[in-house]
């Protein structure tokens, strides 16, 4: 809502500076989006009158003009526009001007003809969107005057963001009422007195409302014998400053009064209404109307129309029809001022894709009891500026008056919600400034508040409390903190576990990423996922922005790989990342999608680049496994195991499924070469684990394991075994046979090559033996070692190597 302050000041005085006004409006709930100082950049623009317009001798498209700017000598100005003729008054930018669009005006020669200045279009002055030609000014402006003064442009226009609950503020008077609440100054609504003629309005037209639900009130004034023509300059300026295009005096007045009062008005050419009839009804199937914008529109039963005795002549509250529009030839006018049911207007406007100034107001709710005031105000202005006779009486069909609502308001409720100590008179004072009528309920601190019909948003006690709060000032309310014993802050076990997993991965060198929950289903094809696989149980969006973000992710892998790829494409080859996020799937027959938190890991490149002390090492399967082990270790998961994992995403020889007990938790491994090729990636290692299952198996608290008091004996062994023997087998046997003295056994060397026969590998273990209650002897330790060697030999054919 554009509000020129010069206009606003017609209704209220205020001594606030522009900055202060903006602040006060903002802090009382009328948000100011921007402030425009209109005259900016127009200091060197004056009103000129064209004396001559001659063709340029050497250029077809140019004219040479002589312009009177109120000085002794007229200026010679070369111009390219075609819409000018001698006698026109136009804005002239003088030499030295810098226009709002940055153009500097200098004396120049155009194809040999001197030009001292520029004739301006609206767009060059940043006044409108009309770039078609020179801005032809109304005849009554004074030649030589400063353009800004002559057009009232030494003005400030504030752009207000009006929230949908405040239709009353889509009007100058409504905004002035807010200023009144802020300043306490008096509000001046224009007094209306219509000089009526002798003829009766009722005799000139009849109005019937067929659907009272959708149209509770329809009022009209009849004005006969008007002369349609341009509006006076002041009126055009006002409309332009408020963002509307002047059309003709009749339409301009309806717009002006709408901007003033908030009541949309529509003027019909009375003679085009068959039988002088207005019927407010629902459209009939198959009916059509050509609206003012020249578009033929098909109507349906849910749309309210204004019809004459025959056909629809307007889309009620949204847009008038072309057939009945006011033209230069119009003489008699029917001026509509109605109240339409908001939801119906909204639906029709949306369906038609027609959002007009009128529909914007009707769909939020105009004041049903303001219809006649607006009609009278407009009739008075029409009589004044377009001539004609206003017929006696208003035709006003309003069978069931909409009465002001009455609400109860309790003082202690106001203070209880706001945390204030406002007295009853203070509350009353605030409400009365907003034109609410307050009566105190005898013997109580409670009020009965009558809400005028221009405030449809005030429906409940809490709505009144909000009014009190915003006018009292949010920033005048004292700050406190809730004093409650009910506050027990903290994280749940689940949340703490997630945090510790993240912290461990960060400390292990992985960075956290966050990606869309939405993916492109085609990316899942790249993962070589077979048909019917759960990774294809997509949850699809009904209205995606694009195919790229059209289904919810069934796996974190797609986005992890895309992030690797994104970085590799930017020469970031060493990428180690994880993401904790949800995956989603639609199980057959279930309407509600399933949703589960997952941990995804992806590694590529090296942990660190070449260093002076150490060369870079490419990440392999065991780096990935180490990251998984770190997570399990961090949250104290025991009893986990791995097994071979066959999935087309992963390399069959370098992948594993993680189980805790018998339950699969997830998988990890090197990407299958086919997947790498599909993503055009170098090697990458990925894993995806079910977060909830991990958390279910996380330790809640750790109990101290006693620190040994007796010394340990450490022995190393190296054995040769067939290279098909899994390391795990060796460790299992060592641990089984070493019990109970063996505290720990660990692989510290793995070797194949020179000195080791083909098909064999050398595995070296360091073993720590300890007894908890005494000091071990060498004999028993060596004995245990020999038993281990014998067992390895017996079961795995291992030969001792050292």
């Amino acid at each position, binding site marked *: 809502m554009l509000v020129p302050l010069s206009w606003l000041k017609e209704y209220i005085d205020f001594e606030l500076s522009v900055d202060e006004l903006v602040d006060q409006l903002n802090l009382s709930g009328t948000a100011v989006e921007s402030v425009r100082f209109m005259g900016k950049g127009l200091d060197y623009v004056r009103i000129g009158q064209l004396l001559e317009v001659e063709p340029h001798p050497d250029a077809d498209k140019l004219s040479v003009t002589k312009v009177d700017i109120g000085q002794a000598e007229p200026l010679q100005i070369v111009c390219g526009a075609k819409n000018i003729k001698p006698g026109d008054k136009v804005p002239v930018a003088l030499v030295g001007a810098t226009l709002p669009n940055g153009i500097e005006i200098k004396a120049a020669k155009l194809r040999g003809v001197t030009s001292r200045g520029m004739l301006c279009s609206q767009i060059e002055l940043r006044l409108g969107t009309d770039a078609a030609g020179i801005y032809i000014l109304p005849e009554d402006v004074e030649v030589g005057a400063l353009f800004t003064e002559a057009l009232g442009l030494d003005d400030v226009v504030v752009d207000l963001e009006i929230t949908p609950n405040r239709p009353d503020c889509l009007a100058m008077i409504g905004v002035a009422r807010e200023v009144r609440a802020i300043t306490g100054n008096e509000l001046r609504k224009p007094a209306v007195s219509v000089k009526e003629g002798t003829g009766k309005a009722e005799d000139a037209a009849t109005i019937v409302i067929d659907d009272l639900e959708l149209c509770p009130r329809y009022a009209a004034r009849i004005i006969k014998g008007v002369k349609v023509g341009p509006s006076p300059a002041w009126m055009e300026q006002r409309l332009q400053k408020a963002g509307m295009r002047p059309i003709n005096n009749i339409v301009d007045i309806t717009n002006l009064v709408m901007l003033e009062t908030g009541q949309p008005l529509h003027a019909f050419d009375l003679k085009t209404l068959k039988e002088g009839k207005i019927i407010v009804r629902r459209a009939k199937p198959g009916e059509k109307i050509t609206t003012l914008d020249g578009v033929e529109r098909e109507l349906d039963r849910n749309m309210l129309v204004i019809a004459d005795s025959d056909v629809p002549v307007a889309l009620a509250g949204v847009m008038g029809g072309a057939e009945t529009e006011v033209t230069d030839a119009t003489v008699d006018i029917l001026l509509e001022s109605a109240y339409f049911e908001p939801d119906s207007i909204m639906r029709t406007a949306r369906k038609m894709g027609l959002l007009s100034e009128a529909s914007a107001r009707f769909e939020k709710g105009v004041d049903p009891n303001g219809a006649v005031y607006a009609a009278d105000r407009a009739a008075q202005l029409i009589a004044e500026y377009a001539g004609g006779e206003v017929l006696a009486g208003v035709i006003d069909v309003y069978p069931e008056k909409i009465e002001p609502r009455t609400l109860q308001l309790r003082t202690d409720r106001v203070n209880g919600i706001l945390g204030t100590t406002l007295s009853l008179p203070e509350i009353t004072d605030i409400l009365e400034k907003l034109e609410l009528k307050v009566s105190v309920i005898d013997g109580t601190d409670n009020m009965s508040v009558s809400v005028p019909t221009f405030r449809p948003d005030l429906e409940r006690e809490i709505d009144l409390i909000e009014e009190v709060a915003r006018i009292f000032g949010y920033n005048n309310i004292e700050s406190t903190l809730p004093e409650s014993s009910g506050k027990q802050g903290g994280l749940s076990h689940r949340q703490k576990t997630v945090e510790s997993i993240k912290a461990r991965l960060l400390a292990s060198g992985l960075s956290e990423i966050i990606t869309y929950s939405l993916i492109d289903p085609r990316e899942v094809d790249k993962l070589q996922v077979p048909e019917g696989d759960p990774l294809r149980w997509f*949850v699809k969006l009904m209205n995606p922005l694009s195919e790229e973000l059209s289904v919810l992710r069934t796996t974190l892998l797609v986005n992890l790989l895309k992030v690797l790829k994104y970085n590799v494409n930017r020469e970031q080859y060493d990428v180690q990342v994880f993401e904790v996020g949800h995956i989603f799937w639609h199980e057959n027959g279930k309407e509600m999608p399933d949703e589960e938190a997952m941990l995804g890991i992806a590694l590529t490149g090296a942990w660190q680049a070449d260093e002076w002390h150490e060369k870079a090492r490419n990440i392999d399967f065991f780096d990935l496994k180490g990251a998984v082990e770190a997570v399990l270790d961090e949250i104290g998961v025991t009893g986990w195991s791995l097994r071979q994992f066959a999935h087309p995403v992963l390399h069959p020889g370098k992948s594993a499924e993680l189980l805790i007990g018998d339950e699969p938790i997830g998988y990890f491994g090197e990407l299958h070469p086919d997947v790498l090729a599909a993503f055009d990636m170098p090697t990458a290692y990925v894993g995806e684990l079910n977060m909830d299952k991990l958390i279910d198996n996380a330790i809640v608290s750790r109990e101290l394991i006693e620190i040994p008091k007796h010394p340990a004996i450490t022995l190393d062994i190296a054995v040769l075994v067939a290279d098909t023997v899994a390391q795990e087998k060796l460790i299992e046997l060592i641990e089984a046979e070493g019990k109970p003295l063996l505290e720990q056994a660990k692989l510290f060397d793995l070797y194949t090559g020179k000195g080791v026969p083909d098909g064999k590998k050398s595995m070296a273990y360091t073993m720590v033996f300890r007894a908890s209650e005494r000091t071990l002897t060498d004999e028993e330790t060596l004995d245990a070692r020999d038993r281990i060697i014998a067992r390895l030999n017996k079961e795995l054919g291992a030969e001792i190597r050292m």
Partner: protein
Amino acid sequence: MASKAELDNFYEQAKGAVESASDLRALDQVRVEFLGKKGQITSVLKTLGQLPADERKLVGQAANEVRRRLEGAISAKQTELSRADVEERLATEAVDITLPGRRTAHGSQHLISQVIKEITGIFIGLGYRVAEGPEVEIDYFNFKALNQPPDHPARSLQDTFYIKKESVHPADDDILLRTHTSPVQIRVMKEQEPPVYIIAPGKAFRRDVPDPSHLPMFHQVEGLAVDEGITFGDLKGTLEAFTKQMFGKKRKIRLRPHFFPFTEPSAEVDVSCAVCDGKGCRLCGSGWLEILGAGMVDPNVLMEVGYDPEKVSGFAFGMGVERIALLMHGVPDLRMFIENDMRFVKQF
């Protein structure tokens, strides 16, 4: 034959050898040569027996004196030489301290997670629990229970992502991607009686094409307090406590009345700009930066979850995490948060 003169001569000779020893090994050789079991002083002492008794005593004393002095000289020389040895070792062991240190690989937490952690941490300190909920929601939790009217534009296909219904018996309610984390508030209130003090961080979705200032998925942190006697003043005090911890002690807040369907009275909350301290600059314009929306929980919402608005009241607030991260760290383009360029991620 040993004589005093010979001993003096011996001492001078030995002392000269000690002085000229260039390292500890040479010095040890000198010691062995002059003082060792087979050394010269020993052979001098061995000849003592051949001297007359009175002379023997004298020469013996003198010889012991020479030995003592020589041992003293050797010891002094030893100290000197070993110091030199340490010095030399220190000199040869010196490293170039300007070489880069050895470091282990480190990961960085995503900036959005860091900001969420910081915000939730502050509210945990104020006595709030962290509540979470699903990203796929039904209309009831996302809109209806939050007092959002059926025709509200936020519900349109233009603004909200809806899920395609797949089953033969479609659910009554629309399924959608939550447009804010407020449904978590409804879920919590439906599950428990007041008092409720929760903070709900998470992802939210709106149907915006990604550009520097929009993302179809973003993060929100919302808070809710419902208890007996909660006031608008409590909301203000809570937000002040939060902004001072989050943005610095000197920051002030300003509340502007606004309209949200689920709160009343409602406010948009600005924090004073840290760059210009509220005076107005190129970053903030007016001196204030909008950071969150807030208000008193609408009685309709309380009734919807079965609370009695005459007995309890509450406040709620919500903020966009990306916006806060952007203000705090000068990120020019929201898409950087979702691209996960390692050069971005690793900076924070």
